């Protein structure tokens, strides 16, 4: 687990949720997960490839997503599956965009793939190299789960082995 790669995502999630929901939040359960990811609600997965490789999953139950959506839009919105999906995607985009900004300014270059719906009840089993950190952000709108598995990309690892600085 490379905390230096994961910390920017934690900071970004904390900042984005606190500002968007305009209420305090706390980090509840935090666990390492080697087994396949078990989805809790509507989940969006974003893959990163390049100097840093891995994936981040954002997962909200339907009721939480609707409450978060209303905070994002600042208005009452009719409940629908589209609304829930759009909320999870927007949250993923904002958190990852902020984290990417930090990592890129630290010199890491990588591609962020568009979010995809994580529809399966269970994800693929993680390998030892991609052991995931699962965090629960407890907010006034409900629990937001973030699951991160991140490692250095091949070029970074080879560069470090050769003693070069990437």
């Amino acid at each position, binding site marked *: 687990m490379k905390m230096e790669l994961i910390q920017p995502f934690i900071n970004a999630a904390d900042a984005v949720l606190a500002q968007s929901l305009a209420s305090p939040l706390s980090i509840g359960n935090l666990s390492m997960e080697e087994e396949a990811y078990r989805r809790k609600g509507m989940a969006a997965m974003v893959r990163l490839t390049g100097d840093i490789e891995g994936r981040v999953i954002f997962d909200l139950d339907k009721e939480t997503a609707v409450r978060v959506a209303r905070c994002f*839009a600042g208005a009452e919105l009719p409940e629908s599956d589209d609304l829930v999906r759009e909320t999870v995607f*927007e949250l993923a985009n904002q958190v990852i965009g902020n984290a990417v900004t930090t990592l890129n300014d630290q010199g890491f270059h990588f591609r962020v793939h568009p979010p995809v719906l994580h529809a399966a009840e269970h994800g693929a089993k993680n390998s030892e190299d991609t052991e995931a950190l699962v965090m629960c952000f407890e907010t006034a709108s409900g629990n937001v789960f973030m699951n991160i598995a991140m490692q250095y990309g091949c070029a970074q690892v080879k560069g470090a082995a050769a003693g070069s600085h990437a």
Partner: protein
Amino acid sequence: MQEFAALLRKQDRQPVRYLVVDDSVFARKNLARMIETFGGQLAGEAGDGAAAITEYDRTNPDIVLMDITMPQMEGIEAAERIVQKHPEARVVMVSSVGYQENIVAALQRGARHFVQKPVKPEVLYEVIKYVMGEDGAVASAAAAGAPGGAGGAQ
């Protein structure tokens, strides 16, 4: 929601007209709500860069608020095309991806400013004031959100 003194066009004291470009419905709604508190008027919306170019031609807004990562055509390319065709266009990039390379690329290709998401209304307000420059004017606070001012798409 915070209250702001209305930002108007200096030439005719009419509300500043905005084109909001973002593939996220939430982001568009959120920006539209902020525009309303600035006493502005939503001239149009678009969900991708290609649609933004068409909407710019159709609505001729005073300000474009443009996301970067979008389907079809990304915001930086759309900004460049708009500015090539309309050198007077004022495009402000609004994105969660705010690393230096991205900002520099946007500014080099015609954008006037950059605001990072999640957008803070007070930051966006100051950026709009700066970008409008001498073409903008701040009215009294009571004018913001006045009837006939903000919100209505044309």
